[in-house]
């Protein structure tokens, strides 16, 4: 297990999911800060700006697939380009409500994706995720 998670980013357009998941994560007391974004583009813009302020960069990203403006796949492609400039290995999970085998297969094509998690993220599931790091 890693010592301490300073920051986690939650990228999802489902506001109820974000609300509940943020709450669950806070309840585990394993994470200092949770920052939420509604789509891939918002998150990419944030990461781009945070290049100069590494303390703002997250340790973990939880990424939804199906989002407006820029979906999860679009984010992963942009993130791949940005990665060399970030100087940090952000652990990225795809978090989806569907267990569509096509999506799972596609996610394996991205080296930065650690795992494919099926919603909901319960307290226990999140603890297990963090313990496995």
């Amino acid at each position, binding site marked *: 297990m890693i010592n301490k998670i300073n920051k986690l980013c939650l990228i999802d*357009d*489902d*506001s*109820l*999911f974000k*609300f*509940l*998941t943020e*709450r*669950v994560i806070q309840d585990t007391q394993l994470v200092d800060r949770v920052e939420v974004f509604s789509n891939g583009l918002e998150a990419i813009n944030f990461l781009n700006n945070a290049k100069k302020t590494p303390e703002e960069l997250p340790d973990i990203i939880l990424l939804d697939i*199906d989002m407006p403006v820029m979906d999860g796949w679009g984010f992963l492609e942009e993130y791949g380009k940005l990665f060399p400039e970030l100087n940090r290995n952000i652990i990225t999970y795809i978090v989806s*409500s*569907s*267990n*569509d085998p096509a999506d799972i297969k596609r996610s394996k094509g991205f080296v930065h994706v650690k795992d494919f998690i*099926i*919603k*909901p*993220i*319960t*307290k226990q599931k999140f603890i297990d995720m963090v313990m496995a790091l």
Partner: protein
Amino acid sequence: MNTEGAMVSTNKISPNTYSVGMNKLVLAVQELSLARNLDTIMLIVRRVARELTGADGATFVLRDGEYCFYAEEDAISPLWKGSKFPLKTCISGWAMLNKQSVVIEDIYVDDRIPHDTYRPTFVKSLAMVPIRTISPIGAIGNYWARNHAPSNDELLLLQSLADITAVSIENVNMYNQLEDKLAERTQMLAQLTDQKQQLEEFCQIIAHNMRAPLSNLLLLGDMIKETPDMDDKLMFLDKQKPVIDYLNDMFDNLVDAIQVRMDFSVDKEEIDIEQNVLKTLALLQGEIIECGAVVNCDFSEANTILFSPTYFDSVIFNLVSNAIKFRLPGTQPEITIKTYKKDGFTYLEVEDNGLGIDLDKNGGNLFKLRKTFHNHPNSKGFGLFITKGHVEAMGGKIWATSEPGIRTVFTIQINSNVIQ
């Protein structure tokens, strides 16, 4: 010698003539093997029949119930092409009924011949062979302008031609049946492909659209149970309500949509477009007046369409209410509903000057259900999904073109001719 020579020329074909006939027969077999319909067979046979025996005329007769139908002929002057005679009064009928060939050297001394029918023609003598000896389906006739008795060899050649013709006709029938079957199977395959696609679509909806709210409900349930805080419990309970409503609506719509797609027997009728559109616009009167929209209708090019009346009303309702809902603020909404015909299709267009849709970004999802549930189900997503289902159940297509901020056109294409 002379006498014998004369005998040979009238009653027997010379070996040379016979082999020429055989060659012609072989060529005819090759030609017939390529024939794919009865007309082609008849054209080949009427020509070859005459060439084989050097006759002055040949006919191709088909049995049509109790009649002989003179379907084709090739002769020095017209015979009976296109005419029908009762089997019993006609020599081709005799050959068919008696399942054997017949040679008549002088037709005017044979009472099987209806002399009145022959008098206007050149025919003095004839030979008739049935096509297929077991239960004949027709006959081939040869005619001479002089008294002539065809030799056994000539008759044999002619009968061979008739036998080959029978086989060719059966082949053509078989071929046509196979083609029909193939067409039927191809259509079934296309239908199955459509159904598979629809099934995948429904699977997709269930996997994506229903799982997201369900997983939120599951988590909410856990949190309500686990939190000791009463205010939190109430807050979580409050959050359940819209999700449950959304799932309920989604479920109802999905069931409706599946029923539409499974209902192959839904009745189509010829619909009076103007009458039905006006009826539907009356239902939307409130919204139309409230936003000050102008609705133009032009059904002068096509005022009927083959559609289920219920589906038609629903399609018009959805497209018009969409046009009102996505109007451009600060612009008077203008909606144009018109029809036209082109290349065997009837088209119905609903055009508006509203917000428009960025089809490059959203085109693929335009007619799909929306994934998330923050928007009220009735406001987005379901309408076009249901509309597409209705149009496709009618065998039609629907698509949209749009210039954002200028205009959006929804076009429905329905086959004008096919009545199923």
